[in-house]
């Protein structure tokens, strides 16, 4: 066990898996010599060399397209997209190719790969260094989507993702890259995909969230506890396929639901979660489910803290849903 932050934990997972599995390669912009603009791949170039930690030309489409080809060959590429805001030049390769390869080839060409990329706001990044685009991938059949909230999960989920036979989008909440610290075991372990964690137990209202917003939800939960409301906060960890059993069991217990995410509200993942709960536990709901999310605008700069669904906006939602 040692104290690590998210960056260190992810770095540790990458190093371990590259040592264990020679098929694993990393490629992306600035991932090599400089170790990534967030230093997540620091030291790996020195340890594994230019054939396995590869600085590429400036093209996300090239990175992902080439990685797909490597995966078809039988390698296990773990490409990095420098900011998730820059994933869109590669969107065609992800949506049309990566996601559909196993299916369209009747199983002949699976793609075992993980796309790592930082997400989220609160770092003064404006439109293009702050987005949280998960719902644009959750809608695409064939992809798995993961978003850890702490170093332990980050390492364990990344190891599980790399070993998972299907393509995984691994979204790293950059606002807590260094802020989230915790004990991380030294050797190998995995956190299984599609299992949520109950971060705080409670009986009155279920809060679904993930990534950096977990801490805001926990903070809000503490605050409303002072007013006698016990919120159960669930960290989804894997967004898709989501851990439906944990969600439904919690909502059946509490009868109330609040979903919190940074991404814009309209068409965001919260809508999917609410619809799922409606399908599976409608008659247990004692109040209208509530979304606390980013607004339906591009991500702002100066006013970003007003844009984000932080604790101060979650508290009234929790209190409101109790009145419902």
């Amino acid at each position, binding site marked *: 066990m040692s104290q690590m932050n998210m960056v260190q934990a992810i770095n540790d997972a990458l190093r371990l898996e590259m040592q264990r599995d020679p098929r694993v390669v990393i490629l992306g912009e600035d991932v090599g010599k400089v170790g990534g603009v967030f230093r997540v791949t620091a030291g790996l170039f020195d340890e594994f060399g230019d054939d396995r930690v590869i600085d590429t030309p400036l093209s996300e489409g090239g990175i992902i*397209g080439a990685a797909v080809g490597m995966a078809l060959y039988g390698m296990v590429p773990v490409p990095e997209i420098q900011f998730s805001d820059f994933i869109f030049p590669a969107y065609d390769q992800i949506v049309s190719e990566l996601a559909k390869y196993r299916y*369209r080839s009747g199983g002949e060409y699976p793609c075992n790969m993980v796309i790592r990329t930082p997400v989220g706001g609160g770092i003064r990044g404006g439109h293009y260094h702050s987005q949280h685009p998960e719902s644009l991938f959750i809608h695409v059949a064939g992809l798995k989507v993961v978003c850890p909230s702490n170093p332990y999960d980050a390492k364990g989920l990344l190891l599980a993702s790399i070993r998972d036979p299907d393509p995984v989008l691994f979204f790293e909440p950059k606002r807590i890259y260094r802020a989230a610290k915790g004990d991380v075991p030294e050797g190998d372990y995995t956190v299984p995909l599609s299992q949520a964690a109950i971060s705080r137990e409670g009986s009155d209202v279920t809060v679904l969230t993930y990534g950096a917003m977990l801490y805001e939800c926990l903070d809000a939960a503490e605050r409303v506890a002072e007013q006698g409301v016990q919120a159960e906060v669930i960290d989804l960890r894997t967004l898709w396929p989501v851990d439906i059993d944990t969600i439904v069991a919690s909502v059946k217990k509490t009868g109330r639901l609040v979903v919190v995410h940074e991404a814009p509200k309209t068409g965001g993942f919260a809508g999917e979660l609410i619809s799922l709960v409606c399908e599976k536990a409608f008659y247990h709901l004692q109040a209208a489910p509530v979304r606390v999310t980013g607004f339906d605008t591009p991500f702002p700069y100066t006013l970003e803290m007003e844009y984000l669904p932080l604790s101060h906006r979650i508290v009234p939602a929790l209190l409101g849903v109790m009145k419902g």
Partner: protein
Amino acid sequence: MLREDGTLAPEYDPQLSTDEVLRIYRQMVQTRIIDERLVTLQRQGRIGFHIGSLGEEAAIIGSAYAMREEDWLFPCYREFGAALLRGLPLQRYIDNMFGNANDPVKGRQMPDHYTCREAHWGSVSSPIGTQMTQAVGFAWAAKIEKKQLATLVYFGDGSTSSNEFHNAMNFAGVFRTPCVFFCRNNGWAISVPVERQTASQTFAEKGIAYGVPGVRVDGNDLFAVVGVTRRAAERCLAGEGPTLIEALTYRMGGHSTSDDPNRYRAADEVKPWVERDPIERVRRYLELAGAWDGDREEALREAVDQEFREAVKLAESTPAPELSTLFDDVYRDLPWHLAEQRQELLAGPRAPKAH
């Protein structure tokens, strides 16, 4: 190299034995006949779609022939003749045309969108160009793993305008990946002629932008195609990196069964290309060599026809894939939501049959 009268210019001879030429010729003829028959099946409403290779057989089959068995080919969508040469079983191809239960792709894709890993053949996709970047990654992986392997990728003139061409060529140049970019310049991208596709003089010279050597070849000259492709594959194996080949040929038919070329090109534009027919040229060569004659031609055509008819008969009488297969292979294991959806579909009423 192969003159229009069927004689061979000696200086670039790829040294194909008559047996080799016969094998390729048979594949070219089979391809042409299947093309014609599939168009008929489509017109009869028995299959939904076909995209053919009329006039491009030398480019397609010659280039595939030039690659070793252990090498890999990434298809565009117009190269079923090459796939058959590489070992795609005819029945498998025809099953795909019908999207039936025997189709290894399980009737999930359109006709002509097949896969054949055992033939070292990729997976046909519709989005233009995506296979190029993947082929580069594949070749690159082989290089990283120090395998002696060349990878060839097919694409059309129109595809050079895609994002993918740029990414593939650029990565291939920088990382010197062992791959052969085989551009079928057939003059058209559906209704768009090459002048509308690029202002460069040739497609081959696009290699300069990427430090990748480019070569232009008469794509209707089987011998030239084999020779040039072999040289490019040798460069791959010798660690000299990628080559861009532009095979100058012509799409003698419509873009696909959905297209009517009369809407956008004059019939007499096609005429000179009829004279350059790549199959005719090889046949004349073989006749001159005393290795071919009318009887053999007739026997070949009959055999091809027979085999095709039987494959169609079997394919057409094979039922559609099982309903539950709809949910397989999205992921390796069936997740809860697909299990639920499968259950819902299987328990519910069946759809009306008609389109």
